């Protein structure tokens, strides 16, 4: 069977890919931030994502209010958890083995979150009931689902805020200094430990946003995070570890590629694009395609 790709299907797939890529970008931004400021590989990032999705679902079920409003609680909560996690757990790891040990530590945290969610909410698939879950806007014959647009807008706004914060505030300068050269940053009087805590908090706050965005248009279950962590890890390596713009660019590129490849290859094979791209990156340009000098040292 030769798949004939029609124009509308192509456009639809590009739009779907961009929307998906936006979400990937937000989720990968947090992950790359942890690595940047702390050289931490945060396996539990997607587990926190699912935790946020569950909180949004629970909030909606209990109050009947739009799940987006749960962000008012979850974003500050996740920021505090992030700072706490960095100060109380990750900061205690020996610097020499930090990266390796952080994999083990955050893997354990991911399992605790998954188990906790399963215990409290059971393994049942949950989905937020929204009046507008099936609504869409027409654009040149293609359809843009309202929920996906909201998720994309959320991701774009969060990424923009993160960019402004990193670029134009003192905290952002301190964060970037810590990413570029921790020793030099310390010599300049930056308290890199505290900054790393804030960086971690910020990363986790993006997980709150991403999880809520995810919960709008997908069923969720406790072990769903394993499905996300692989592609996200691939994205940050391809984008260059520690580089937020790199992660965002790689995310959008891979999101669109995945969506387009689904047309000829089907769902099963299209998801291998992340790993294929990862292999190519590691062979051709191990430091990542967008900035990111960190990986060379790693």
């Amino acid at each position, binding site marked *: 069977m030769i798949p004939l790709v*029609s124009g*509308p*299907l192509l456009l*639809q*797939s590009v739009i*779907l890919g961009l*929307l*998906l890529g936006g979400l990937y970008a937000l989720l990968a931004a947090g992950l790359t931030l942890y690595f940047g400021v702390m050289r931490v590989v945060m396996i539990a990032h997607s587990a926190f994502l699912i935790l946020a999705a569950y909180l949004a679902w629970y909030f909606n079920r209990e109050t009947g209010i739009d799940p987006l409003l749960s962000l008012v609680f979850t974003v500050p909560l996740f920021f505090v958890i992030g700072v706490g996690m960095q100060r109380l757990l990750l900061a205690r790891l020996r610097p020499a083995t930090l990266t390796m040990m952080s994999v083990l530590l955050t893997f354990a945290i991911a399992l605790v979150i998954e188990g906790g969610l*399963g215990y409290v909410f*059971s*393994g*049942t*698939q949950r*989905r937020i*009931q*929204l*009046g507008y*879950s*099936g*609504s*869409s806007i*027409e654009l040149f014959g293609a*359809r843009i*689902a309202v*929920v*996906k647009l909201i998720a994309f807008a959320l991701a774009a706004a969060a990424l923009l805020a993160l960019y402004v914060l990193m670029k134009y505030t003192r905290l952002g300068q301190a964060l970037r200094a810590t990413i570029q050269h921790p020793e030099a940053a310390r010599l300049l009087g930056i308290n890199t430990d505290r900054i790393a805590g804030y960086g971690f908090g910020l990363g986790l706050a993006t997980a709150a946003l991403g999880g809520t965005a995810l919960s709008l*248009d*997908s*069923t969720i*279950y*406790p*072990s*769903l995070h394993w*499905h996300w962590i692989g592609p996200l890890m691939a994205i940050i390596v391809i984008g260059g570890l520690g580089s937020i713009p790199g992660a965002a660019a790689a995310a959008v590129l891979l999101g669109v590629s995945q*969506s387009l490849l*689904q*047309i000829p290859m*089907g*769902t*099963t094979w*299209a*998801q291998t694009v992340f790993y294929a791209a990862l292999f190519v990156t590691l062979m051709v340009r191990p430091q990542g395609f967008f900035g990111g000098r960190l990986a060379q040292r790693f």
Partner: protein
Amino acid sequence: MKIRSREVRRAALAATSAIALTLTTAACGLGSDSGSNDDEIVIGISLPLTGDFSEPGKGVQRGYEAWADYMNENGGLLGKQIRLKILDDQSSADRVASDYEKLINQDKVDLVFGPFSTRLVVPAAQVAQDYGFLFVEPAGAAEEVFTQGFDNLFYAAPAVANDHYNLLADTILSMPEGERPKTAAYASMDDPFAQGTAYGLRDKLAAGGVETVVDEVYPPNTTDFSGIAAKIADSKADIVVGGSQYQDAVNLIVALRQLNYQPKLAAFSTAPTNPEFPEAIGAKTEGILSPTGYTPDAEYPENKTFVDFYTEANGTPPAEDEANAWTTGEVVAAAVEAADCADPSPECQQKLIDHLRENTVDTVVGPLSWDAEGRPQSAHMIQQYVDGKIRIVLPEDLAEAEFVFPKPAW
């Protein structure tokens, strides 16, 4: 010196572990005869209580537990109380095999019941076969279950996966030329049961002249269905058929609605019979079809007892998974009573198998009998959401409502 002492310590540790292991094994050996008390029958089960199949897995668990409670309240089986030993296989095929291995070998259960779904039934049935155990299962309906050469397996439901849509296929193909759908889109989970249902219908319709325009397969853990939905919407197929379990159908339907795709007929396996389905897809259920082997309204006397008992205990009437689990219990119980034994010995298990091979058992899904490979010989009904409630529309003599075609917009 330091190295030496470490070596010594390591050797000592190894020796200690070996002794500990031997002791454990010996203890197991000693305890083997009293794995279950003489006044109870222990039934070993592994179910997917977490992971991809947790939703239906828990339905099966509720059914098994309701059956055991009912039996125990009514004098038990052969005068003995029934105890279920249920393990969680996390929807993993490796895990399910080792679970049954453990149930039979270590826990010394008297009987086993099957897990949920073909992917788990096949490895589980293999273990049961190796130990000569009777294996009645509530949910392995795909063709490959019956082609592995199992001689101990019986499927406790009315029909195998490929035949689930038979009545619907007949109805579609008998429509007048102008009305009959011309094109069809299929999307199925990469799962033998789900594919069996969808492909059974696909092959019959294709043979009858309905062109297949989309034929997609997705992995069980897929949650983003927008790509598949885009293909189906782009094909403008007259009908859409999902070989689905639960969450996949929900996500696919919402994605199709987002693209404003309006088919004349939409049929999905399993998912629409789930009580949470209407809420999950935003109440746009009107006209959605699903094959079912069970309805609480069926008028078999066994079924009335089941529905009353289950509803009183759980507050809601049972669904198909619960019913098939209960049916499994009924089938095994019928064999046990006829053979007058329920123990792990090969002689007893063979007697149970022989009985089912020859006889018909009255169950909550009607009288069941099996062919030599364990395929049940009845038919599935077709249900449809009519006026907001799922009702039987086919076959006509059991119908609770008129078959709606074309389907209203969703």
